[in-house]
């Protein structure tokens, strides 16, 4: 009886099944999805390697610290200090900055941290990918490498200025990066300088693109002058600034204040291209409103009233909105919030006016008061103002701080950093915000970082 169950038919069937089983071990191997590229092949072709780098520029433009949207530093640090006041409902995140009520799980601050380290990861992946690539030409490699090092330094610079001691990340290995410790601020600066110096040696002299949207040797040098200034290395700061100012064929102050922020302004050293042709800056969308009361933000009257009435920057860069009874002001450096047939403005990160102010400050500190006033007055004259009446070193430095406020308002948090550098943050801000305390000079390290990496503890004081 039993044997009849296993006649020839069944044996064949079982054999076929067995065959099926053995032949199918490769069934579960799948090809790469269409939307993804192997990490090695990305760096075997200039176009894809370049795309891996340019993506970092679009990320810097669209999110994190330097973005022009309302969560970026330009708006939030403006609220935090004395440039901007918030409007609207409590859902407007700026109220927390304006009231200096920042908590460790503040979503904007967490985003500064996470988005920036994500950008740094992408840069490190580019750097490692380029170094491993045997196919890309040396020229392509040095250019991309130079850009990546420059941006890495730039991002760490902003991080150290808002968070204090921070990890300096140079590798992609997450096993190491997840347990990193905070580096003392001075060492962070050393790393920034070293990255910028390497990038200067690698980057081409000319912009590699027709618009000033890709870093060149000058871009890195201009930024290095700011870094030296923050480090109080005044000789190096003024030398770097001079090397930019002296290239008058390339850079010159735009004498018409209405044209300073236009796309082809010769004052621009580095700007971020808009996402779409015809699109203008995110800053314009954030700051401009056409009727009052404003829904999200307006310029702090404190700032507006500090301008001299004859200051051309007040009339060019600030617009007054009134409903008949009340008056509000908005930043008007960027004037185009809508699409235009071709883009008129890009978001500027570095411009020549700052180089003059850097050199003025560096010269003042070195005792070159005449040189300092010369640079300061260059900026004042462009604004239609008479020369500064400051005479002593202290007066000149005060005048420079004041001038920086007028010149650089709503540009990526200059005011906050300047007040800190001049040790005036407590006196200036607590005069207008009783809630201010001295610990507020540093933002809190995001809660999640403190939770997941004990090496980042302790939290900044006061949080």
């Amino acid at each position, binding site marked *: 009886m039993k044997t009849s*169950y296993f*006649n020839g038919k069944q044996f064949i069937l079982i054999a076929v*099944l067995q065959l099926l*089983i053995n032949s199918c*071990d490769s069934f*579960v*191997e*799948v090809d*790469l*999805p*269409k*939307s*993804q*590229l*192997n*990490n090695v092949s990305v760096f075997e072709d200039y*176009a*894809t390697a370049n*795309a891996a780098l340019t*993506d970092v520029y*679009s*990320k810097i*433009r669209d999110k994190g610290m330097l973005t022009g949207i309302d969560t970026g530093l330009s708006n939030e640090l403006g609220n935090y200090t004395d440039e901007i006041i918030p*409007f609207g*409902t*409590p859902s407007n995140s700026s*109220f927390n900055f304006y009231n*200096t009520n920042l*908590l460790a799980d503040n979503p904007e601050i*967490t985003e500064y941290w*996470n988005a920036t*380290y*994500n950008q740094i*990861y*992408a840069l490190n*992946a580019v750097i490692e990918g380029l170094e491993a690539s045997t196919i890309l030409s040396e020229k392509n490699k040095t250019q991309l490498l130079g850009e990546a090092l420059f941006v890495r330094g730039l991002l760490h610079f902003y991080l150290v200025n808002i968070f204090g001691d921070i990890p300096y*990340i140079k590798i*992609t290995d*997450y096993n190491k*990066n997840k347990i*990193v410790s905070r580096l003392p601020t001075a060492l962070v600066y050393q790393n920034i300088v070293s990255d910028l110096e390497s990038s200067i040696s690698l980057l081409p002299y000319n912009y590699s693109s027709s618009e000033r*949207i890709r870093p060149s040797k000058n871009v890195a040098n201009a930024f290095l002058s700011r870094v030296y200034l923050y480090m109080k290395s005044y000789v190096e700061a003024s030398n770097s600034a001079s090397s930019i100012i002296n290239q008058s064929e390339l850079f010159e102050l735009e004498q018409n204040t209405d044209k300073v922020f236009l796309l082809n302004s010769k004052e621009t050293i580095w700007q971020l291209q808009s996402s*779409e042709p015809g699109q203008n800056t995110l800053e314009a969308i954030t700051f401009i409103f*056409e*009727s*009052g*009361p404003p*829904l999200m933000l307006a310029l702090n009257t404190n700032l507006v009233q500090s301008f001299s009435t004859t200051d051309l920057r007040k009339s060019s860069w600030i617009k007054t909105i009134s409903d008949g009874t009340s008056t509000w002001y908005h930043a008007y450096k960027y004037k185009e919030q*809508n*699409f235009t047939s071709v883009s008129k403005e890009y978001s500027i990160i570095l411009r020549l006016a700052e180089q003059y102010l850097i050199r003025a400050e560096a010269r003042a500190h070195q005792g070159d008061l005449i040189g300092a006033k010369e640079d300061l007055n260059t900026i004042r004259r462009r604004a239609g103002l008479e020369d500064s009446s400051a005479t002593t070193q202290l007066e000149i430095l005060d005048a420079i701080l004041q001038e920086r406020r007028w010149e650089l308002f709503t540009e990526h948090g200059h005011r906050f950093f300047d007040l800190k550098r001049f040790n005036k943050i407590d006196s200036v801000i607590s005069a207008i915000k009783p*809630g201010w305390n001295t610990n507020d000079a540093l933002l809190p390290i995001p809660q*999640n*970082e*403190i*939770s*997941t*990496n*004990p090496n*980042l503890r302790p*939290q900044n004081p006061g949080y």
Partner: protein
Amino acid sequence: MNNFSFYKDGKALYCLILSGILLSFSSSFARNSVQQFKSTFQQHQIQGTISDGSDPMPGVTISIKSKTNSSTISDYNGQYKLSTFPNDTLVISYIGFKTLIVPINGRQIVDVKLIYDTTALQEVRINAGYYSVKESERTGNIARITSKDIETQPVTNVLATMQGRMAGVNIIQNTGVPGGGFDIKIRGQNSIRAEGNAPLYLIDGVPYASETIGYNQTATIYPTTTSPLNSINPDSIESIEVLKDADATAIYGSRGANGVVLITTKKGKAGKTTFRVNASTGTGTVGKFMKLMDTSQYLAMRNQAFQNDGIPFNSWDYDVNGTWDQNRYTNWQKELIGGTSSISDLQASISGGSERTQFLISSSYHTESTVFPGDFIYKKGGSQINLNHRSEDNKFNLTFSAGYNLQNNDQPAFDFTFDSRSLPPNAPKLYTSQGDLNWENGTWDNPLRNLNAKFESSTNDLVANSVLSYELISGLTIKGSFGYTSLNTTETRTAPSSLFNPIYNITSANSSLYLNNTGRSSWTIEPQINWEKQIGLGKLEILFGSTFQSQTTSRLFQIGTGYSSNSLIYNLGSANYIKVLFNDETLYKYQAFFGRINYNFNQRYIINLTGRRDGSSRFGSGNQFANFAAIGAAWLISNENFIKNSSWLSFAKIRSSYGTTGNDQIGDYQFLNTYSNTSGKYDGTIGLEPTRLYNANFGWETSKKLEVALELGFFKDRLFTTASWYQNRSSNQLVGVPLPGTTGFTVLQSNLDATIQNRGLELTLRANNFSRENFTWSTNLNLTFARNKLLSFPGLESSTYNQQYRIGQPLNIEILYQYKGINPQTGIYEFEDINKDGKITFPEDRQKTADLTPKYYGGIQNQLRYKRWNLDFLFQFVKQKNHIYPMGFAGQMSNQPKVKMDSWQVPTDIAEYQIYTTGYNSDVVTAEYLYNRSDASITDASYIRLKNISLSYQLPLNLNAIQCKITLQSQNTLTFTKYKDGDPEFTSAGYLPPLRVITAGVQLTF
């Protein structure tokens, strides 16, 4: 049990019982057929009526003993006709009744009265996926509901039908907006990954992927992205079986760890062609609002807040500075979520067929409007076809079923629940006298601006399956199952310029449209061999099979921005700029070999071995394959001679199982180191970004499951109870480990050497309290006690989870600050300073834990029949804690719960809540933040809910061919809870709660 309802609903069980009988008798038929044919003489036509003593019984199977080809089924009047031979013997069977053996003895009219048999429920064959098993002989834990339970519920989602009805299955509804999702956990959370706890779904044996088909930029109305499970039509379901323990799930190997949900669609039945039409209509409303402040209470709070802060009104404090009418009052909850949605439902089916071929075709159409302002509607319709065929020699069987469902959903883009709770009660009116949206000179964001932003989706879904089987020789059957699924969805969300306050002067040049096109299709082939053989007193069943599955998912997310007019917004071609945000096509391949050996000795000792070898494309080389196996055993004590004739104990069984299952829900391609396209454009180049931190070496998550259960039936099973104790231990956790942002990402997929234990006790009780001709009453109870525990986690302290989990505690805990009370001097909340450093610091002072896992949950169902009336109601209960609704600090320009009127004002005040502030007092703001992360924010959210009640009446038409039934049904009818902040059933706060639905309907059968 309620025997009446079997008349109408038990039809679906015909084929189960039929096939059961056929299977159990088939070998003896084959042996005896030759002898039978020798004794043939002349044909003989018999007829008769089958009744239960009072009413005729349709759908009863009348077959002739030892002749497989001759059988029939009684019609709607209980009548049958059959060709026999005068000396044949009839076998008359119907589920829930004792099978009768009636010799014809030459009669031409054979009327039969069937006797109700509670024990027969043990004869029901339960679907265990690759095989079926008699209820009394099963070795695994399988919970089950049938169409009888589903039909009483006015719901559209398959998971809703199971809520409160199954032990060990905890289901939470995420939102009351139609088309929203449900959260299901079978025997607790096994995986640290929140998204790694979904069970495996199979529809008629075809795996149905439950991974989201939505996109968070389009389905903004829901707390979670769109689930494909909405496509399943509850009306087409015959039964749902949930496989829970190792014995039942190990045969699903790597996908069985979180349980398996088997959905069986309705099948055609032999007999007279039956038409059935079901129409119902009803309403849905929000059952419970939060108690919020009215205008005078609100303004008193605001004024007090300014007084407390010592500051004057700012220009933007419109609610208090006189800009807005201070006498105005709007109940925003009533205005924004207090509407009534109208629901209508129509179903029709035709079924019938011959003894060898049966068919069923059904269609349904459902519409549901919204409780929000505006005209929004959810529509769902579909068709189901089923065909069964058996060859003349009974060796070949074919089953084909296909279901096609369409959904069209039109909803506002945003849920109004949050606005309805936070808007100041004196906020301006919604419309101007001209009927336009009122912006009150730009001083507020009118909540109805969100009506201009719409979410629309259309989904079509096809599931088709054919099963062919052939009996090669007696006892040996080969079977092939071929399945195909195809799903396509298009979702759009508009963000027109009219969404913004006109003071921004935003034009349609900034309007945008988000678009999600997702398609998923899969095929499955499952060849199988079954062999069964009677060996002495025992029966051996062997099954061997394999699975090949391939699933392709394609996704395209786009945004179009800039239109010349908002009326063109749906035309992507009219957009000035079109950006592809994401475009991908992923492939998931899966293969497995599985087997089962079952030996049943003398209906007393049963042993069941199952195993599976699985391979999945979701893992890198070397990690793709793994083995899973389980052993189950049962001892039917009641079949032992020493107990067999007990007067009170009618059934007793002990069963136990142990085995392993796995989990591969990790997403596709996670082991690859790749770059992906981004939507970012710069310098003429579309960007490429590193897709993830990669880890090539992760593998399966495994669960070891142990179960011991006792099943007892008393008094002929009129009282039947089961108790199951289980323990699941899941290790090698496959997780997105949270990483510090300094790594560049916030998660990394990897295996974590942590073990999670779920232990619990599941009790069920079925009682036929009363069973008479005119009145029956039965009760079903299910009760689950469950405890989840993180058993081990080497290096937890130094891991990224150190502020999320605690060893020895459940996964679903919150680590909290410890609330001390209000400082009588400052009026500010105070917290325990655990490390005594004089300030509240994280993480040192955040050490208290609260468990949000339900302690126990279950349901009590009662079914009553009096003559033609049927009443069925279910109470669902959950003992749990949950968060209070976070309203932010009191005193800001946002409404607050009424209870916050009890706030501290002057020193020595004793108040429940701290001092008001406008946001100016940062100590108060910080304290509010800590309060919402302290034990004070966790409250009792237990509830008892009259989940479902259904009343029906069978009209006394006295027409033989037509039956008419009127029904009144309600879902979420009443809720009893101490929870103050709205409905206690939610996973994320601020979304529409489950609606209270009431419908009335009529069912015609002819």
